Protein backbone atom coordinates (compact mmCIF):
# COMPACT_ATOMS: atom_id res chain seq x y z
CA UNK A 1 0.00 0.00 0.00
CA UNK A 2 1.74 3.17 -1.23
CA UNK A 3 -0.73 5.64 0.29
CA UNK A 4 -2.43 5.94 3.66
CA UNK A 5 -6.18 5.12 3.41
CA UNK A 6 -6.84 7.54 6.25
CA UNK A 7 -5.97 10.42 3.95
CA UNK A 8 -9.00 9.67 1.83
CA UNK A 9 -12.73 9.47 2.22
CA UNK A 10 -12.55 6.18 0.36
CA UNK A 11 -9.52 4.23 -0.69
CA UNK A 12 -9.48 1.17 -2.92
CA UNK A 13 -6.35 -0.88 -2.45
CA UNK A 14 -5.23 -3.37 -5.06
CA UNK A 15 -8.67 -4.59 -6.04
CA UNK A 16 -8.90 -7.82 -7.99
CA UNK A 17 -12.11 -9.23 -9.36
CA UNK A 18 -12.59 -12.17 -11.69
CA UNK A 19 -16.04 -13.20 -12.87
CA UNK A 20 -17.20 -16.69 -11.85
CA UNK A 21 -16.65 -18.25 -15.27
CA UNK A 22 -12.95 -17.51 -14.71
CA UNK A 23 -12.56 -16.17 -18.25
CA UNK A 24 -12.93 -12.48 -17.58
CA UNK A 25 -10.67 -10.49 -15.32
CA UNK A 26 -12.73 -7.42 -14.48
CA UNK A 27 -10.26 -5.79 -12.10
CA UNK A 28 -6.57 -6.54 -11.99
CA UNK A 29 -5.07 -4.70 -9.05
CA UNK A 30 -6.83 -1.36 -9.10
CA UNK A 31 -5.90 1.22 -6.46
CA UNK A 32 -7.66 4.52 -6.15
CA UNK A 33 -8.31 7.17 -3.53
CA UNK A 34 -11.25 9.58 -3.38
CA UNK A 35 -11.11 12.68 -1.23
CA UNK A 36 -14.02 14.52 0.30
CA UNK A 37 -15.90 16.77 -2.11
CA UNK A 38 -13.79 15.52 -4.98
CA UNK A 39 -15.29 14.91 -8.41
CA UNK A 40 -13.71 11.90 -10.05
CA UNK A 41 -14.66 10.57 -13.48
CA UNK A 42 -13.82 7.07 -14.67
CA UNK A 43 -13.70 6.53 -18.40
CA UNK A 44 -12.68 3.73 -20.64
CA UNK A 45 -14.04 1.37 -23.28
CA UNK A 46 -16.95 -0.94 -22.57
CA UNK A 47 -15.94 -4.00 -20.56
CA UNK A 48 -12.83 -2.38 -19.09
CA UNK A 49 -14.06 -2.84 -15.52
CA UNK A 50 -15.49 0.63 -14.76
CA UNK A 51 -18.86 -0.59 -13.50
CA UNK A 52 -17.27 -3.46 -11.57
CA UNK A 53 -15.02 -0.96 -9.82
CA UNK A 54 -18.06 1.17 -9.01
CA UNK A 55 -19.90 -1.87 -7.61
CA UNK A 56 -16.99 -2.92 -5.43
CA UNK A 57 -16.44 0.63 -4.15
CA UNK A 58 -20.18 0.92 -3.44
CA UNK A 59 -20.14 -2.36 -1.46
CA UNK A 60 -22.51 -3.99 -3.94
CA UNK A 61 -19.89 -6.59 -4.69
CA UNK A 62 -16.86 -8.01 -2.90
CA UNK A 63 -13.39 -7.99 -4.41
CA UNK A 64 -11.62 -11.34 -4.79
CA UNK A 65 -8.52 -9.70 -3.42
CA UNK A 66 -7.73 -6.27 -2.08
CA UNK A 67 -9.69 -4.02 0.23
CA UNK A 68 -11.82 -0.92 0.20
CA UNK A 69 -11.31 1.51 3.07
CA UNK A 70 -13.91 4.04 4.08
CA UNK A 71 -12.56 6.80 6.29
CA UNK A 72 -9.61 4.56 6.96
CA UNK A 73 -11.65 1.52 8.06
CA UNK A 74 -11.72 -1.58 5.85
CA UNK A 75 -15.18 -2.43 4.48
CA UNK A 76 -14.34 -6.10 4.85
CA UNK A 77 -14.67 -5.65 8.61
CA UNK A 78 -18.12 -4.06 8.31
CA UNK A 79 -20.80 -6.43 9.54
CA UNK A 80 -23.61 -4.58 7.87
CA UNK A 81 -22.81 -3.41 4.38
CA UNK A 82 -26.49 -2.71 3.69
CA UNK A 83 -26.41 -0.10 6.42
CA UNK A 84 -23.18 1.31 5.04
CA UNK A 85 -24.73 1.67 1.59
CA UNK A 86 -27.91 3.16 3.02
CA UNK A 87 -26.13 5.78 5.13
CA UNK A 88 -22.97 6.69 3.23
CA UNK A 89 -23.50 6.02 -0.46
CA UNK A 90 -25.91 7.38 -3.02
CA UNK A 91 -26.39 5.54 -6.29
CA UNK A 92 -27.48 6.95 -9.63
CA UNK A 93 -27.96 4.59 -12.57
CA UNK A 94 -28.13 5.11 -16.29
CA UNK A 95 -31.64 3.64 -16.44
CA UNK A 96 -32.92 5.56 -13.40
CA UNK A 97 -34.69 2.48 -11.95
CA UNK A 98 -37.59 4.36 -10.41
CA UNK A 99 -40.46 2.27 -9.11
CA UNK A 100 -43.33 2.62 -11.59
CA UNK A 101 -46.22 2.42 -9.13
CA UNK A 102 -44.91 5.23 -6.95
CA UNK A 103 -45.06 8.97 -7.45
CA UNK A 104 -41.89 11.05 -7.56
CA UNK A 105 -42.39 12.03 -3.94
CA UNK A 106 -42.77 8.40 -2.90
CA UNK A 107 -39.82 7.20 -4.97
CA UNK A 108 -37.55 9.62 -3.16
CA UNK A 109 -38.68 8.22 0.19
CA UNK A 110 -37.82 4.60 -0.58
CA UNK A 111 -34.25 4.66 0.85
CA UNK A 112 -35.49 6.50 3.94
CA UNK A 113 -37.28 3.43 5.33
CA UNK A 114 -33.92 2.35 6.69
CA UNK A 115 -33.47 5.64 8.53
CA UNK A 116 -34.91 6.95 11.75
CA UNK A 117 -37.40 9.37 10.20
CA UNK A 118 -41.13 9.02 10.70
CA UNK A 119 -43.63 9.16 7.86
CA UNK A 120 -44.18 12.93 8.02
CA UNK A 121 -40.47 13.72 8.22
CA UNK A 122 -39.83 11.42 5.28
CA UNK A 123 -42.40 13.26 3.23
CA UNK A 124 -41.04 16.65 4.24
CA UNK A 125 -37.50 15.66 3.39
CA UNK A 126 -38.55 14.19 0.06
CA UNK A 127 -40.28 17.48 -0.77
CA UNK A 128 -37.09 19.36 0.04
CA UNK A 129 -35.05 17.06 -2.17
CA UNK A 130 -37.50 17.42 -5.03
CA UNK A 131 -37.16 21.17 -4.62
CA UNK A 132 -33.38 20.79 -4.74
CA UNK A 133 -33.53 19.08 -8.13
CA UNK A 134 -36.26 21.44 -9.40
CA UNK A 135 -38.97 18.81 -9.49
CA UNK A 136 -41.44 20.00 -6.84
CA UNK A 137 -44.08 20.52 -9.50
CA UNK A 138 -43.85 16.84 -10.51
CA UNK A 139 -44.10 15.43 -6.99
CA UNK A 140 -47.38 13.65 -7.65
CA UNK A 141 -46.43 12.19 -11.02
CA UNK A 142 -45.41 8.63 -11.65
CA UNK A 143 -42.25 7.81 -13.65
CA UNK A 144 -44.33 6.94 -16.72
CA UNK A 145 -45.64 10.50 -16.76
CA UNK A 146 -42.16 12.07 -16.69
CA UNK A 147 -39.57 12.77 -19.36
CA UNK A 148 -36.27 10.88 -19.15
CA UNK A 149 -34.50 14.00 -17.89
CA UNK A 150 -37.09 14.43 -15.16
CA UNK A 151 -36.76 10.80 -14.20
CA UNK A 152 -33.02 11.13 -13.77
CA UNK A 153 -33.51 14.18 -11.57
CA UNK A 154 -35.94 12.21 -9.41
CA UNK A 155 -33.38 9.39 -9.23
CA UNK A 156 -30.80 11.96 -8.19
CA UNK A 157 -33.10 13.22 -5.44
CA UNK A 158 -33.60 9.61 -4.31
CA UNK A 159 -29.83 9.07 -4.13
CA UNK A 160 -29.61 11.99 -1.69
CA UNK A 161 -32.37 10.68 0.59
CA UNK A 162 -30.08 9.59 3.42
CA UNK A 163 -27.54 12.44 3.04
CA UNK A 164 -24.71 10.33 1.64
CA UNK A 165 -21.13 11.55 1.56
CA UNK A 166 -20.26 9.75 -1.66
CA UNK A 167 -22.38 9.61 -4.77
CA UNK A 168 -21.64 6.85 -7.28
CA UNK A 169 -23.12 7.31 -10.72
CA UNK A 170 -22.98 4.86 -13.60
CA UNK A 171 -23.47 6.74 -16.87
CA UNK A 172 -25.92 9.21 -15.32
CA UNK A 173 -26.31 11.11 -18.58
CA UNK A 174 -26.13 8.08 -20.84
CA UNK A 175 -29.85 8.14 -21.70
CA UNK A 176 -30.30 11.90 -21.74
CA UNK A 177 -30.28 14.47 -24.51
CA UNK A 178 -27.69 17.23 -24.28
CA UNK A 179 -30.05 19.71 -22.62
CA UNK A 180 -31.06 17.30 -19.88
CA UNK A 181 -27.50 16.01 -19.55
CA UNK A 182 -26.32 19.56 -18.87
CA UNK A 183 -29.12 20.04 -16.32
CA UNK A 184 -28.14 16.89 -14.46
CA UNK A 185 -24.44 17.74 -14.58
CA UNK A 186 -25.15 21.22 -13.22
CA UNK A 187 -27.11 19.65 -10.40
CA UNK A 188 -24.29 17.25 -9.58
CA UNK A 189 -21.77 20.07 -9.60
CA UNK A 190 -23.95 22.18 -7.31
CA UNK A 191 -24.49 19.31 -4.93
CA UNK A 192 -20.81 18.70 -4.69
CA UNK A 193 -20.27 22.37 -3.88
CA UNK A 194 -23.23 22.86 -1.50
CA UNK A 195 -23.14 19.52 0.30
CA UNK A 196 -19.42 18.74 0.00
CA UNK A 197 -20.47 15.57 -1.74
CA UNK A 198 -17.79 13.37 -3.29
CA UNK A 199 -18.70 12.23 -6.80
CA UNK A 200 -17.42 9.16 -8.58
CA UNK A 201 -18.92 8.97 -12.04
CA UNK A 202 -18.46 6.28 -14.64
CA UNK A 203 -18.96 7.83 -18.06
CA UNK A 204 -18.30 7.70 -21.75
CA UNK A 205 -19.23 11.36 -22.08
CA UNK A 206 -16.40 13.83 -22.62
CA UNK A 207 -18.62 16.57 -21.17
CA UNK A 208 -19.05 14.72 -17.90
CA UNK A 209 -15.35 13.94 -17.70
CA UNK A 210 -14.44 17.54 -18.57
CA UNK A 211 -16.05 18.85 -15.40
CA UNK A 212 -14.22 16.39 -13.12
CA UNK A 213 -11.30 17.28 -10.86
CA UNK A 214 -9.68 14.08 -11.91
CA UNK A 215 -10.22 11.65 -14.76
CA UNK A 216 -9.22 8.03 -14.41
CA UNK A 217 -8.87 5.99 -17.58
CA UNK A 218 -9.23 2.24 -17.41
CA UNK A 219 -8.46 -0.54 -19.82
CA UNK A 220 -8.62 -4.31 -19.33
CA UNK A 221 -9.35 -4.03 -15.62
CA UNK A 222 -6.51 -1.67 -14.84
CA UNK A 223 -6.02 2.06 -14.46
CA UNK A 224 -3.95 3.30 -17.35
CA UNK A 225 -4.10 7.03 -16.62
CA UNK A 226 -4.91 8.98 -13.46
Amino acid at each position, binding site marked *: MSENPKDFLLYADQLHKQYPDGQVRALGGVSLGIKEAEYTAITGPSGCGKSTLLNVIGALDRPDKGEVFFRGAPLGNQRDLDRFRARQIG*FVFQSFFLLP*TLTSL*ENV*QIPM*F*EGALGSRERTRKAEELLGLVGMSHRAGHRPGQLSVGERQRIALARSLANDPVLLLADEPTGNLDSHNATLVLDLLTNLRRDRRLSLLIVTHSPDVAARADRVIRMRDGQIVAN
Partner: protein
Amino acid sequence: MYFVTFVLKNLTRRPVRTALTVIGLAVSVGSMIALLGISENVEHSITDSLARRGVDLVVTSAGKTDQLASEIDEKLIDQVRQIPGVKEVSPAMVELIEITRDSGTSINVLVQGWPADNFVYEDIKILSGRRLLAGDHGKAMLGLTLSESMGKGVGDKVTIQGEPFEVVGVYQSFVVFENGSAALPLDEVQRMMARPGKVTGFSMRVEKSHNDPNSSVEAIRQQVNALTDSTGKPAKLSAQTTQSYVDSVSQLKVVRAMAWMVSVIGMLIGVISMLNTMVMSVLERTQEIGILRAIGWPRRRVVKMILGESVILALSAAVLGTIGAFAATYVLALFPKVNGFIEGGVPLKVAMEGTAFAVLIGLFGGSYPAFRAARLLPTEAIRHV
Protein backbone atom coordinates in the same frame (compact mmCIF):
# COMPACT_ATOMS: atom_id res chain seq x y z
CA MET B 1 -45.38 7.41 2.99
CA TYR B 2 -45.76 4.40 5.23
CA PHE B 3 -44.10 1.10 4.41
CA VAL B 4 -47.48 -0.57 4.20
CA THR B 5 -48.55 2.02 1.60
CA PHE B 6 -45.62 0.97 -0.51
CA VAL B 7 -46.54 -2.70 -0.09
CA LEU B 8 -50.14 -1.96 -1.09
CA LYS B 9 -49.02 -0.02 -4.15
CA ASN B 10 -46.95 -3.00 -5.27
CA LEU B 11 -50.16 -5.02 -5.38
CA THR B 12 -51.80 -2.51 -7.71
CA ARG B 13 -49.12 -3.09 -10.33
CA ARG B 14 -50.96 -6.08 -11.80
CA PRO B 15 -54.55 -5.47 -10.74
CA VAL B 16 -56.02 -8.36 -12.71
CA ARG B 17 -53.54 -10.85 -11.30
CA THR B 18 -54.04 -9.49 -7.81
CA ALA B 19 -57.82 -9.72 -8.17
CA LEU B 20 -57.70 -13.26 -9.57
CA THR B 21 -55.37 -14.40 -6.79
CA VAL B 22 -57.63 -12.88 -4.15
CA ILE B 23 -60.72 -14.46 -5.71
CA GLY B 24 -59.02 -17.86 -5.95
CA LEU B 25 -57.90 -17.71 -2.35
CA ALA B 26 -61.29 -16.39 -1.28
CA VAL B 27 -62.91 -19.50 -2.78
CA SER B 28 -60.53 -21.70 -0.76
CA VAL B 29 -60.93 -19.75 2.46
CA GLY B 30 -64.66 -19.20 1.90
CA SER B 31 -65.29 -22.92 1.34
CA MET B 32 -63.49 -23.68 4.53
CA ILE B 33 -65.39 -21.04 6.48
CA ALA B 34 -68.73 -22.12 5.03
CA LEU B 35 -68.19 -25.82 5.77
CA LEU B 36 -66.80 -25.27 9.24
CA GLY B 37 -69.54 -22.72 9.86
CA ILE B 38 -72.29 -25.18 8.90
CA SER B 39 -70.73 -27.88 11.05
CA GLU B 40 -70.33 -25.45 13.95
CA ASN B 41 -73.91 -24.18 13.54
CA VAL B 42 -75.36 -27.67 13.62
CA GLU B 43 -73.31 -28.59 16.69
CA HIS B 44 -74.17 -25.35 18.37
CA SER B 45 -77.83 -25.78 17.54
CA ILE B 46 -77.96 -29.23 19.10
CA THR B 47 -75.92 -28.25 22.15
CA ASP B 48 -77.98 -25.11 22.61
CA SER B 49 -81.27 -26.94 22.32
CA LEU B 50 -80.24 -29.52 24.91
CA ALA B 51 -78.93 -26.86 27.26
CA ARG B 52 -82.00 -24.66 26.95
CA ARG B 53 -84.27 -27.61 27.61
CA GLY B 54 -82.33 -28.40 30.73
CA VAL B 55 -81.31 -31.81 29.42
CA ASP B 56 -78.56 -33.39 31.50
CA LEU B 57 -78.20 -36.75 29.81
CA VAL B 58 -78.99 -38.12 26.37
CA VAL B 59 -79.54 -41.87 26.15
CA THR B 60 -79.20 -43.99 23.01
CA SER B 61 -78.38 -47.64 22.30
CA ALA B 62 -74.80 -48.44 23.14
CA GLY B 63 -72.54 -49.01 20.15
CA LYS B 64 -74.76 -47.23 17.63
CA THR B 65 -72.83 -44.49 15.92
CA ASP B 66 -75.91 -43.35 14.03
CA GLN B 67 -78.63 -42.09 16.35
CA LEU B 68 -81.34 -42.94 13.81
CA ALA B 69 -80.28 -46.59 14.07
CA SER B 70 -80.57 -46.55 17.85
CA GLU B 71 -83.39 -48.65 19.31
CA ILE B 72 -84.45 -48.78 22.94
CA ASP B 73 -87.30 -50.72 24.48
CA GLU B 74 -89.86 -48.34 26.01
CA LYS B 75 -90.07 -50.57 29.09
CA LEU B 76 -86.55 -49.51 30.00
CA ILE B 77 -87.76 -45.93 30.24
CA ASP B 78 -90.01 -46.87 33.14
CA GLN B 79 -87.00 -48.40 34.88
CA VAL B 80 -85.04 -45.21 34.29
CA ARG B 81 -87.85 -43.15 35.79
CA GLN B 82 -87.53 -45.24 38.97
CA ILE B 83 -83.88 -44.29 39.51
CA PRO B 84 -83.71 -41.89 42.45
CA GLY B 85 -82.73 -38.42 41.33
CA VAL B 86 -84.26 -38.71 37.86
CA LYS B 87 -86.65 -35.79 37.42
CA GLU B 88 -87.98 -36.25 33.92
CA VAL B 89 -87.51 -38.55 30.96
CA SER B 90 -88.57 -37.55 27.48
CA PRO B 91 -88.47 -40.33 24.88
CA ALA B 92 -88.66 -39.79 21.12
CA MET B 93 -88.43 -41.69 17.89
CA VAL B 94 -86.60 -39.75 15.22
CA GLU B 95 -86.70 -40.97 11.63
CA LEU B 96 -86.01 -39.67 8.15
CA ILE B 97 -89.33 -40.19 6.41
CA GLU B 98 -90.54 -39.39 2.92
CA ILE B 99 -93.11 -36.62 2.61
CA THR B 100 -94.87 -36.21 -0.72
CA ARG B 101 -95.56 -32.75 -2.04
CA ASP B 102 -98.73 -31.86 -3.92
CA SER B 103 -96.64 -31.86 -7.10
CA GLY B 104 -95.91 -35.55 -6.53
CA THR B 105 -92.24 -35.05 -5.71
CA SER B 106 -90.94 -36.38 -2.42
CA ILE B 107 -88.46 -35.11 0.09
CA ASN B 108 -86.94 -36.80 3.10
CA VAL B 109 -87.90 -34.98 6.25
CA LEU B 110 -86.87 -35.55 9.81
CA VAL B 111 -89.99 -36.75 11.60
CA GLN B 112 -90.08 -36.57 15.40
CA GLY B 113 -92.30 -39.02 17.20
CA TRP B 114 -93.11 -37.31 20.49
CA PRO B 115 -95.35 -38.58 23.28
CA ALA B 116 -97.90 -36.05 24.51
CA ASP B 117 -95.92 -35.43 27.71
CA ASN B 118 -92.59 -34.70 25.96
CA PHE B 119 -90.97 -31.69 27.58
CA VAL B 120 -90.18 -30.30 24.10
CA TYR B 121 -93.69 -28.84 24.17
CA GLU B 122 -92.61 -26.52 26.97
CA ASP B 123 -90.48 -24.37 24.70
CA ILE B 124 -91.79 -24.69 21.15
CA LYS B 125 -94.03 -21.86 20.10
CA ILE B 126 -97.34 -22.82 18.52
CA LEU B 127 -97.76 -20.28 15.71
CA SER B 128 -101.12 -21.56 14.58
CA GLY B 129 -103.47 -24.39 15.53
CA ARG B 130 -102.61 -26.54 18.52
CA ARG B 131 -100.04 -28.98 19.85
CA LEU B 132 -100.41 -32.76 19.61
CA LEU B 133 -102.45 -34.28 22.37
CA ALA B 134 -102.75 -37.75 23.83
CA GLY B 135 -105.03 -39.87 21.68
CA ASP B 136 -104.35 -37.95 18.46
CA HIS B 137 -104.30 -40.16 15.38
CA GLY B 138 -103.63 -39.09 11.81
CA LYS B 139 -102.54 -35.70 13.10
CA ALA B 140 -99.26 -33.91 12.54
CA MET B 141 -97.54 -30.67 13.43
CA LEU B 142 -95.19 -28.96 10.98
CA GLY B 143 -92.13 -26.89 11.82
CA LEU B 144 -92.26 -23.35 10.45
CA THR B 145 -89.63 -23.89 7.75
CA LEU B 146 -91.24 -27.11 6.55
CA SER B 147 -94.69 -25.53 6.61
CA GLU B 148 -93.46 -22.64 4.45
CA SER B 149 -91.52 -24.80 2.01
CA MET B 150 -94.50 -27.15 1.53
CA GLY B 151 -97.08 -24.40 1.55
CA LYS B 152 -99.11 -26.28 4.14
CA GLY B 153 -100.88 -24.92 7.19
CA VAL B 154 -103.43 -25.89 9.79
CA GLY B 155 -106.27 -27.95 8.33
CA ASP B 156 -104.25 -29.04 5.26
CA LYS B 157 -103.39 -32.64 4.52
CA VAL B 158 -99.84 -33.89 4.10
CA THR B 159 -98.79 -37.30 2.83
CA ILE B 160 -96.20 -38.89 5.07
CA GLN B 161 -94.87 -42.20 3.81
CA GLY B 162 -98.00 -42.62 1.74
CA GLU B 163 -100.42 -41.91 4.59
CA PRO B 164 -102.52 -38.78 4.86
CA PHE B 165 -102.07 -36.67 7.99
CA GLU B 166 -103.99 -33.59 8.99
CA VAL B 167 -101.88 -30.61 10.04
CA VAL B 168 -103.18 -29.51 13.43
CA GLY B 169 -100.45 -27.02 14.27
CA VAL B 170 -97.47 -25.09 13.00
CA TYR B 171 -94.69 -24.50 15.51
CA GLN B 172 -91.48 -22.56 15.78
CA SER B 173 -88.55 -23.94 17.70
CA PHE B 174 -85.22 -22.32 18.55
CA VAL B 175 -83.64 -25.49 17.14
CA VAL B 176 -83.13 -25.06 13.41
CA PHE B 177 -83.65 -28.68 12.40
CA GLU B 178 -86.86 -28.93 14.45
CA ASN B 179 -88.23 -26.08 12.35
CA GLY B 180 -87.50 -28.17 9.27
CA SER B 181 -89.14 -31.30 10.66
CA ALA B 182 -92.61 -32.67 11.30
CA ALA B 183 -93.88 -33.90 14.68
CA LEU B 184 -96.20 -36.87 14.94
CA PRO B 185 -97.53 -38.78 17.95
CA LEU B 186 -94.90 -41.28 19.08
CA ASP B 187 -97.17 -44.30 18.59
CA GLU B 188 -97.90 -43.25 14.96
CA VAL B 189 -94.19 -43.16 14.10
CA GLN B 190 -93.62 -46.48 15.86
CA ARG B 191 -96.43 -48.02 13.79
CA MET B 192 -95.23 -46.55 10.50
CA MET B 193 -91.67 -47.71 11.14
CA ALA B 194 -92.85 -51.12 12.32
CA ARG B 195 -91.00 -50.60 15.59
CA PRO B 196 -93.77 -50.81 18.20
CA GLY B 197 -92.72 -50.17 21.77
CA LYS B 198 -89.38 -48.78 20.67
CA VAL B 199 -87.78 -45.32 20.72
CA THR B 200 -84.53 -44.11 19.22
CA GLY B 201 -83.49 -42.36 22.41
CA PHE B 202 -84.53 -40.25 25.33
CA SER B 203 -83.44 -37.11 27.14
CA MET B 204 -83.23 -36.86 30.90
CA ARG B 205 -83.39 -34.13 33.47
CA VAL B 206 -81.88 -35.04 36.82
CA GLU B 207 -81.89 -33.51 40.28
CA LYS B 208 -78.50 -32.00 40.91
CA SER B 209 -76.87 -31.09 44.19
CA HIS B 210 -75.87 -27.43 44.47
CA ASN B 211 -72.39 -28.28 45.64
CA ASP B 212 -71.42 -30.71 42.92
CA PRO B 213 -73.96 -30.91 40.09
CA ASN B 214 -71.60 -32.84 37.82
CA SER B 215 -71.25 -35.73 40.24
CA SER B 216 -75.06 -36.03 40.54
CA VAL B 217 -75.30 -36.32 36.75
CA GLU B 218 -72.40 -38.73 36.63
CA ALA B 219 -73.92 -40.99 39.28
CA ILE B 220 -77.17 -41.30 37.35
CA ARG B 221 -75.31 -41.73 34.07
CA GLN B 222 -73.55 -44.76 35.53
CA GLN B 223 -76.80 -46.23 36.86
CA VAL B 224 -78.48 -45.87 33.46
CA ASN B 225 -75.55 -47.53 31.73
CA ALA B 226 -75.73 -50.40 34.23
CA LEU B 227 -79.44 -51.13 33.69
CA THR B 228 -80.50 -54.64 32.76
CA ASP B 229 -83.56 -55.79 30.90
CA SER B 230 -86.29 -58.08 32.25
CA THR B 231 -84.15 -61.17 31.57
CA GLY B 232 -81.25 -59.75 33.56
CA LYS B 233 -79.08 -59.07 30.51
CA PRO B 234 -77.37 -55.66 30.16
CA ALA B 235 -79.76 -53.19 28.53
CA LYS B 236 -76.82 -51.74 26.55
CA LEU B 237 -77.82 -48.15 27.03
CA SER B 238 -75.39 -45.36 26.47
CA ALA B 239 -76.10 -42.31 28.63
CA GLN B 240 -73.96 -39.32 27.72
CA THR B 241 -73.67 -35.78 28.92
CA THR B 242 -74.92 -33.34 26.32
CA GLN B 243 -71.43 -32.25 25.26
CA SER B 244 -70.09 -35.78 24.83
CA TYR B 245 -73.31 -36.72 23.01
CA VAL B 246 -72.82 -33.88 20.51
CA ASP B 247 -69.17 -34.84 20.12
CA SER B 248 -70.13 -38.44 19.38
CA VAL B 249 -72.96 -37.92 16.87
CA SER B 250 -71.63 -39.73 13.83
CA GLN B 251 -73.21 -37.39 11.28
CA LEU B 252 -71.56 -34.46 12.96
CA LYS B 253 -68.26 -36.27 13.03
CA VAL B 254 -68.52 -36.85 9.29
CA VAL B 255 -69.45 -33.21 8.67
CA ARG B 256 -66.53 -32.06 10.82
CA ALA B 257 -64.10 -34.43 9.13
CA MET B 258 -65.32 -33.36 5.67
CA ALA B 259 -65.05 -29.72 6.61
CA TRP B 260 -61.47 -30.10 7.79
CA MET B 261 -60.49 -32.26 4.85
CA VAL B 262 -61.84 -29.71 2.37
CA SER B 263 -60.14 -26.98 4.40
CA VAL B 264 -56.76 -28.67 4.24
CA ILE B 265 -57.13 -29.26 0.49
CA GLY B 266 -58.24 -25.65 0.09
CA MET B 267 -55.25 -24.49 2.07
CA LEU B 268 -52.85 -26.50 -0.09
CA ILE B 269 -54.41 -25.07 -3.24
CA GLY B 270 -54.20 -21.62 -1.67
CA VAL B 271 -50.53 -22.00 -0.81
CA ILE B 272 -49.72 -23.20 -4.32
CA SER B 273 -51.70 -20.35 -5.85
CA MET B 274 -49.98 -17.83 -3.59
CA LEU B 275 -46.58 -19.33 -4.37
CA ASN B 276 -47.24 -19.06 -8.08
CA THR B 277 -48.38 -15.45 -7.84
CA MET B 278 -45.55 -14.30 -5.63
CA VAL B 279 -42.83 -16.18 -7.53
CA MET B 280 -44.03 -14.52 -10.73
CA SER B 281 -44.18 -11.18 -9.00
CA VAL B 282 -40.64 -11.50 -7.63
CA LEU B 283 -39.32 -12.67 -10.99
CA GLU B 284 -40.84 -9.67 -12.73
CA ARG B 285 -39.38 -7.31 -10.18
CA THR B 286 -35.89 -8.81 -9.97
CA GLN B 287 -34.29 -5.60 -11.20
CA GLU B 288 -36.29 -3.46 -8.80
CA ILE B 289 -35.39 -5.69 -5.88
CA GLY B 290 -31.75 -5.32 -6.92
CA ILE B 291 -32.15 -1.55 -6.78
CA LEU B 292 -33.78 -1.70 -3.36
CA ARG B 293 -30.87 -3.79 -2.11
CA ALA B 294 -28.39 -1.43 -3.77
CA ILE B 295 -29.80 1.64 -2.05
CA GLY B 296 -29.38 -0.04 1.29
CA TRP B 297 -32.44 -2.15 1.98
CA PRO B 298 -31.34 -5.12 4.06
CA ARG B 299 -32.57 -8.60 3.22
CA ARG B 300 -35.08 -8.57 6.06
CA ARG B 301 -36.87 -5.55 4.59
CA VAL B 302 -37.17 -7.30 1.23
CA VAL B 303 -38.62 -10.31 3.08
CA LYS B 304 -41.03 -8.02 4.93
CA MET B 305 -42.13 -6.46 1.65
CA ILE B 306 -42.89 -9.76 -0.09
CA LEU B 307 -44.49 -11.35 2.97
CA GLY B 308 -46.45 -8.14 3.52
CA GLU B 309 -47.82 -8.42 -0.02
CA SER B 310 -48.76 -12.08 0.38
CA VAL B 311 -50.39 -11.54 3.78
CA ILE B 312 -52.39 -8.57 2.49
CA LEU B 313 -53.55 -10.70 -0.46
CA ALA B 314 -54.52 -13.46 1.97
CA LEU B 315 -56.33 -11.11 4.34
CA SER B 316 -58.28 -9.60 1.45
CA ALA B 317 -59.21 -13.14 0.46
CA ALA B 318 -60.27 -13.85 4.04
CA VAL B 319 -62.60 -10.84 4.07
CA LEU B 320 -64.05 -11.74 0.67
CA GLY B 321 -64.25 -15.43 1.61
CA THR B 322 -66.04 -14.67 4.87
CA ILE B 323 -68.61 -12.51 3.11
CA GLY B 324 -69.01 -15.21 0.46
CA ALA B 325 -69.34 -17.95 3.07
CA PHE B 326 -71.87 -15.90 4.99
CA ALA B 327 -73.96 -15.40 1.86
CA ALA B 328 -73.49 -19.01 0.71
CA THR B 329 -74.79 -20.47 3.97
CA TYR B 330 -77.90 -18.29 3.77
CA VAL B 331 -78.50 -19.25 0.14
CA LEU B 332 -77.83 -22.91 0.91
CA ALA B 333 -80.29 -22.82 3.79
CA LEU B 334 -83.01 -21.92 1.28
CA PHE B 335 -82.48 -25.05 -0.84
CA PRO B 336 -85.31 -27.55 -0.33
CA LYS B 337 -82.89 -30.48 0.14
CA VAL B 338 -81.28 -28.92 3.19
CA ASN B 339 -84.06 -26.58 4.19
CA GLY B 340 -84.47 -26.71 7.93
CA PHE B 341 -81.29 -28.68 8.49
CA ILE B 342 -78.73 -25.94 8.30
CA GLU B 343 -78.72 -22.43 9.57
CA GLY B 344 -77.48 -19.38 7.66
CA GLY B 345 -74.55 -17.41 9.02
CA VAL B 346 -71.02 -18.03 10.15
CA PRO B 347 -69.95 -18.01 13.81
CA LEU B 348 -67.30 -15.41 14.65
CA LYS B 349 -64.98 -18.15 15.88
CA VAL B 350 -65.06 -19.85 12.48
CA ALA B 351 -64.49 -16.55 10.65
CA MET B 352 -61.46 -15.98 12.89
CA GLU B 353 -60.20 -19.50 12.17
CA GLY B 354 -60.61 -18.84 8.45
CA THR B 355 -58.69 -15.60 8.76
CA ALA B 356 -55.91 -17.37 10.65
CA PHE B 357 -55.82 -20.00 7.88
CA ALA B 358 -55.59 -17.24 5.30
CA VAL B 359 -52.69 -15.61 7.13
CA LEU B 360 -50.94 -19.00 7.21
CA ILE B 361 -51.55 -19.35 3.47
CA GLY B 362 -50.02 -15.89 3.02
CA LEU B 363 -47.00 -16.70 5.14
CA PHE B 364 -46.39 -20.17 3.67
CA GLY B 365 -47.07 -19.06 0.11
CA GLY B 366 -44.99 -15.92 0.44
CA SER B 367 -42.00 -17.42 2.28
CA TYR B 368 -40.18 -19.06 -0.58
CA PRO B 369 -40.52 -16.08 -2.97
CA ALA B 370 -39.54 -13.72 -0.14
CA PHE B 371 -36.37 -15.59 0.71
CA ARG B 372 -35.57 -16.04 -2.94
CA ALA B 373 -35.90 -12.29 -3.43
CA ALA B 374 -33.77 -11.60 -0.37
CA ARG B 375 -31.00 -13.86 -1.65
CA LEU B 376 -30.65 -11.94 -4.90
CA LEU B 377 -27.29 -10.28 -5.32
CA PRO B 378 -27.86 -6.60 -6.10
CA THR B 379 -25.35 -6.49 -8.95
CA GLU B 380 -26.86 -9.53 -10.67
CA ALA B 381 -30.42 -8.46 -9.99
CA ILE B 382 -29.84 -5.02 -11.50
CA ARG B 383 -28.50 -6.63 -14.68
CA HIS B 384 -31.57 -8.91 -14.90
CA VAL B 385 -33.78 -8.17 -17.91
